[in-house]
C-alpha cells in the first residue's frame, strides 16, 4: 500500500482558515466600534459645544434689519467678549415684533447690567431710560441723544456736525452754481424728533451761510418715512420719486433709505435727474458710488460706535461713572474713495 508522508495539512489548513476568518471578523468588529464611537463622539461634540460663562449682560436695542446696526452690534460684541460680557441683540432673540419701547421694558425687567440703545429716544423711551438708570442699569445711547434723560453716555455724531458734513457734499456737488436755486430733500425716519430734524436743517443752512454767503442757501425739506412697517419703506421711497418733482439732491439719513432710494432711481430710470447722498457703507453702496448712481455717502465708524458704547458701559459698571459724550468720527466716501475700495478688494 502506498502511504503518503505524514499529512498535517488538514489540521493546519483548518486552523489557518479559522485564524484568518477570526481575524477578519475581529477587524470588522473593531471597525464598527471605531465608526460607531466616531459617530457618537461627533454627536457628543455637537451637543456639548463650548459654552463660555459670562460675568456681565448687556442688551443691544436697535433696528436689526439695518446692516449698519448689525455692524455696530458685531463690534460691540467683539469688544464685550474681551471683558467677558455678553451683548444680547434683544430684538433678534425675541421672536415677536416688539417696539423699542417694549424691548427696553423687557431689558429692564430682565435686570441686565447695561443697555445700548440705537433707536430714537422719544418721550416714552426717555422715561424707561430714567427708570433703567434708577434700577441701576447703565444706559448708553447711540446716534440720537436723549439729552433730557439720566442716561450715562451718548456715543455718536453730533447731528449739527453731521448736517454740516452733508451740506459740504451738496456744496461740492453743485460747486460753482447758485445754491439758492437748488432743492434738497432729506429723507429721515418718521420717529426722529422734530427738533433733531430741524437741527439738521439749521446745520446745513448755517454751512452755506457761513461758507458760501453769496451763492445762496438751497431749499431744504424733510421727508419723513415711517419705518415701523418694513414693507412700506420701499414703496414710500418710490412714491417720493414718482409723485413729487424730483429735487436737485436727496439726502438719506439711514442705510435702508439709501439702498431703497438708489435701487428705485435705477429701476425707474431716474439716475442723473437727482443727486443722491447716502448714509452708511456696504458693497452695494460702494458699487453705486463707483457708477455714480449715488454721489457720495457719509459713513460713521461702526467699529468706533460699537466699541465705544461697550467701553462706556464697562466704565460705568466698574466705577459708577463715565463720559457723558463720546464722539465718533465721520467719513465721506465719494467716487474716488469708492474706486479705491473696489481696487483694494480686487
Amino acid at each position: 500500500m502506498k502511504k503518503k508522508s505524514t499529512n498535517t495539512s488538514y489540521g493546519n489548513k483548518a486552523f489557518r482558515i479559522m485564524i484568518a476568518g477570526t481575524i477578519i471578523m475581529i477587524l470588522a468588529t473593531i471597525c464598527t466600534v471605531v465608526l460607531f464611537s466616531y459617530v457618537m463622539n461627533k454627536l457628543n461634540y455637537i451637543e456639548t459645544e463650548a459654552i463660555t460663562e459670562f460675568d456681565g449682560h448687556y442688551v443691544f436695542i436697535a433696528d436689526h434689519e439695518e446692516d449698519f446696526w448689525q455692524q455696530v452690534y458685531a463690534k460691540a460684541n467683539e469688544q464685550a467678549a474681551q471683558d467677558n460680557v455678553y451683548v444680547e441683540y434683544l430684538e433678534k432673540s425675541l421672536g415677536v415684533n416688539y417696539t423699542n419701547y417694549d424691548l427696553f421694558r423687557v431689558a429692564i425687567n430682565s435686570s441686565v447690567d447695561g443697555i445700548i440703545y440705537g433707536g430714537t429716544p422719544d418721550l416714552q423711551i426717555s422715561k424707561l431710560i430714567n427708570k433703567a438708570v434708577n434700577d441701576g442699569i447703565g444706559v448708553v445711547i447711540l446716534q440720537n441723544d436723549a439729552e433730557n434723560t439720566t442716561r450715562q453716555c451718548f456715543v455718536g455724531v453730533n447731528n449739527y456736525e453731521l448736517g454740516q458734513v452733508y451740506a459740504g457734499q451738496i456744496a461740492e456737488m453743485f460747486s460753482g452754481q447758485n445754491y439758492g436755486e437748488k432743492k434738497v430733500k432729506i429723507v429721515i425716519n418718521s420717529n426722529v424728533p422734530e427738533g433733531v430734524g430741524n437741527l439738521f436743517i439749521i446745520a446745513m443752512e448755517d454751512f452755506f451761510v457761513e461758507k458760501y454767503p453769496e451763492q445762496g442757501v438751497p431749499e431744504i425739506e424733510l421727508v419723513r418715512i415711517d419705518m415701523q412697517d418694513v414693507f412700506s419703506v420701499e414703496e414710500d421711497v418710490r412714491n417720493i420719486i414718482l409723485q413729487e418733482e424730483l429735487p436737485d439732491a436727496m439726502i438719506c439719513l439711514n442705510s435702508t433709505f439709501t439702498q431703497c432710494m438708489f435701487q428705485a432711481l435705477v429701476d425707474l430710470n431716474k439716475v442723473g435727474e437727482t443727486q443722491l447722498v447716502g448714509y452708511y457703507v456696504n458693497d452695494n453702496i460702494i458699487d453705486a458710488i463707483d457708477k455714480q448712481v449715488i454721489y457720495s455717502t457719509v459713513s460713521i465708524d461702526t467699529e468706533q460706535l460699537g466699541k465705544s458704547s461697550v467701553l462706556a458701559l464697562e466704565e460705568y459698571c466698574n466705577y459708577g461713572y463715565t463720559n457723558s459724550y463720546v464722539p465718533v468720527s465721520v467719513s465721506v466716501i465719494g467716487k474716488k474713495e469708492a474706486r479705491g475700495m473696489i481696487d483694494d478688494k480686487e
Partner: protein
Amino acid sequence: MIKNNNSRIESVWNNASIQKKLMFSFFIPIMLILSMNIYIYINVNSMIARIDQIYVSNVTLSELSDQLSNVQVSTREYLENKGSTALAKYYEAEQDYRDSIQDLGNNLTSNSMAVMQKNITRQSEKYLSLINETIQAKRGRNVEKYRTTYEQSEVLYMDLQNCIYSLNNEQFKVNASSYYVLLSSLKYMETISITILVIIGVVNIIVIYLLTRSMTYPLIELSHAANEVADGNFEVDIAELDGNDEISVVSNAFSQMVERLQLYIEEIRDSMKRESDLKEHELVMESRMKEVELRNLQAQINPHFLFNTLNAGAQLAMMEDADKTTDFIQNMADFFRYNLKKINMDTSIEEEVSLVDKYIYILNVRFTGEIHYDKQVDESVLKLRIPSMVLQPIVENAVNYGIRNIDWEGHIYLNISRDGDMVYLSVKDNGIGMKQEDIELIKNGQASEVPKPSNSDSNGVGLANVIERLQIFTGNEDVVDIISEGEGKGTEVVIKIPFVE
C-alpha cells in the same frame, strides 16, 4: 516566541476533537455577531433615547407657559371674588411656576438660549413679586394699588409669555436641527451595522464552508479509499493524518487495517502457492510413475500373460524336477510382478533388497555368474518405507554401465546402514566408473544426455527418475550421492533417507 505560541496553539487545535473544533469554529463567529448586535443595539437605543429627549425641552417650556397662565388666571380669579379656593389655587400655581423657574436656570453663558432663560427667570421673579404685591393689596383692600400692580403684572405676563414663546421657538429650531443630525447619524449607523453584519456574515459562511470542507475532506478521501478497498484494490493512498481528532484516528486506523489486511492476504497467497507447488509435485510424481508404468507396459506388453506364462513354465519345470529352472522362472515371475505392483506406491527397504536379490539372481543366470554380489544390511532399517523401484534401477545401472564390459571380475556391493537419523543405501560397483561431468548431468536431472552403452536392456526406470522420486518423497534435494574416483575405479551411488520410526 510568537512562533512557539503559534505552534503550541496549532498543536492544541490539531489534538482537539471534532466536536471541540466545530464548537470553537461556531462559537467565535456567533459570539462576534452577538456582541456586534448587542453593541449596535445599545448604541442605536441610546441614540433613539436621545431623539426622544430632543423635544422634552419644548414640552417643558410649554408646561412653563401653562403654569404662567395658571398664575395669571388664578390671580385674576382671586381679584374678582377674593375666594379662599381661588387663593389656594393661586398659591398652588405660584409654587408650581416658581419650581419650574428654578429648574430653568439663571446662568449667563454664550448660549443664546441660556441668556433667554436667564431673562425669563429674572422677569419671572419681578412678575411673581408684582403678583404677590397685588394679592397683598387685594387682601388689604387697597383697590388702587392692586389695580395698578395687576396692570403692570399683565404687561410683564405678556412679555414673559412672549419670551417663553421665543425661547420655545428657538429651542425648537435647535432641536429640529439636532433631530436631523441624530436621524442622519442613526441612518449612518444603520448602514454601517448592515454593512458590517453582511461582511461578518459572508466571512462567517466562507470560514464555515472552508472549515467544514477541510474537516470533511479526509473523510471523503477515506470513503474513496474504502470504496477502492471494497473493490479489492489495496494499493490505495491514505494520507496519514497528524492530530488526535476522530477523523485522524479513523483514517489512521483504516490505514493500518488495510495494511494488515494486505499482509494477511500475502500470507494466504504464499500458503496457497506452497499448497499448489505441493500439488504440482504430486502431479509430477504421479506423472513419473505413469512414465515408469508406461515403459514397463512397453517393455512387457502383457504382464499378466507373461506372469501366467512364467508360472506355467515354473510348474512345467517343477514337474520335470528341474529345480534350477523352477527357481529361475519363479524369480523372474516375482521380479516382474513386483515391477508392476509396486511402481506407484512406497515399499520397505526389505522388499527393495529382495527385489535386488532376485534381479542379481536373474542376471547371474543370464550371464553365468559373472556378477559377484555382496550385501551388508542393517536389519533395523529394513522396515523403513521408501519409494518402490529405487534400488533395482541403481543396481541395474551398476551392471549395465559399470561392470558389463570390463575385463576383470565384476562386483556389486549393496550396503544399507544407519547413521543417526539418516539411513544410507549404497550400491557400489568396481566397473568402469564415471566421468565427473556425467555425474553432474545425472544429479541435475539430465541423465538422458549421458551416453548409453549400445546393448542396454534396462527395465525402463532410469536413474534420473529414481532421483526425482526420492527428492519428492523426502522433500530434500540432496538425496543421492554419486561417487566415482575415475575410469576403471567403479561407481558408488548412495541414497540418503531420513530415518522415521
